[in-house]
């Protein structure tokens, strides 16, 4: 006598649970008719790799941009330093009392007049002299020995004091901005310079500069018309 067998599944029927529980996640297309195309990766894996690759791409781009920026910064070091140190970018303007201060130097414009003759000397036709007077105070010695004076006009031209002008007291070609011997050779409190300018030039400011000033710094004293 044989034991009774369970009834055979009818032809075409699907086993209700043919796979172990850990493999129950059906691949895409499961239950669909088979096709020639290979099955794609599991959708869960795709969801994990997508963000990871985006992060990698972003990091690569950032590294590229950062390295290019660093290379540019390194390569342009001399140009940047030269542009800053040898240019005029920081204008020191006077306060309400008219004094402009750069470290231990204080300077004030006290007068600005034009002249067609200085001590009997006339400029060439088409030119005139600009007479500038300053009050100067230097509270520290051995600094700011001399300062150049230039007049800026509305056309952006800078006219240098002391060039092609009569020499002699009380005019100097540069301002004395410091001294190594304050007892014997003190900084004069009142100083004057002459500037040759074309007739008709419209000066807007006086610029005072010195090699010993901090980099890019100069004094700009506006001229009131």
């Amino acid at each position, binding site marked *: 006598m044989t034991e009774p067998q369970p009834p055979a599944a009818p032809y075409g029927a699907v086993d209700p649970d043919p796979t172990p529980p850990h493999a129950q996640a059906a691949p895409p297309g499961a239950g669909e008719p088979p096709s020639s195309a290979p099955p794609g990766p599991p959708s869960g894996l795709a969801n994990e790799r997508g963000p990871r690759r985006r992060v990698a*791409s972003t990091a690569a781009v950032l590294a*590229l941009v950062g390295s*290019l920026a660093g290379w540019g910064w390194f390569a342009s070091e001399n140009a940047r330093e030269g542009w800053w140190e040898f240019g005029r970018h920081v204008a020191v303007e006077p306060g309400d009392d008219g004094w402009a201060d750069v470290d231990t130097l204080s300077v004030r414009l006290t007068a600005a007049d034009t002249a067609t003759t200085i001590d009997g000397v006339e400029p060439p036709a088409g*030119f005139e002299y600009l007479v500038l007077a300053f009050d100067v105070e230097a509270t520290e010695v051995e600094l700011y020995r001399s300062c150049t004076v*230039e007049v800026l006009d509305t056309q952006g*031209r800078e006219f240098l004091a002391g060039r092609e002008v009569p020499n002699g007291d009380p005019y100097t070609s540069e301002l004395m901005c410091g001294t190594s011997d304050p007892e014997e050779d003190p900084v004069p409190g009142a100083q004057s310079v002459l500037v040759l300018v074309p007739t008709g030039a419209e000066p807007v400011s006086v610029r005072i500069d010195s090699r010993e000033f901090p980099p890019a710094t100069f004094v700009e004293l506006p001229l009131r018309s």
Partner: protein
Amino acid sequence: MRRARWAVAGMAAVAVAVGGGANAVDSNYLASGWHTVVRGESATDVAAASFQVHVHGATASPHLDDDELVTSPGLFVLVDVSYATEDAWRTPEEIVLIDADGREFTQPSGFGSAGSPWLAGPDIWFRGGLLFEVPADAVADLTLEVRPERPNAQLPSTVVRVPLTVTTESSPLTLTYETLLAEGER
């Protein structure tokens, strides 16, 4: 995913291409002195790089009167020129003569500051003579080149070139210092 990979590869390729291009520019232009040439003529104002130049003419002689008579194995050339700046007082960095073969001649040494470039101001013109010494075979085709900025292989610049018509004399040339000109004079 593949699009991101192509983007990174593309940017890397662009970076390499930019580097190669910069290297090519540096080799072919910057390292050999990249400059713009402004060509002018005698008796006219030529402006470039904040300088205004006006060439009057040039005279050549084998002799130079510099307190004592000096004789050159070639020729002394004295270029009569006026110039001013457009913005501030400064001296041109260099003024040279260039002949047909590209040879450059600077001011000879030993003659003091007379005959050398001088300081000029904004629209403040000076006229004077610039001294050169050249081989006799160079005088037929000479060009004056004014270089306002210091020649720098790494920086572009602008120069002024004016072809010269040189008059040859047997009498000695005389050096004089530059003179300030009245407004409108050259």
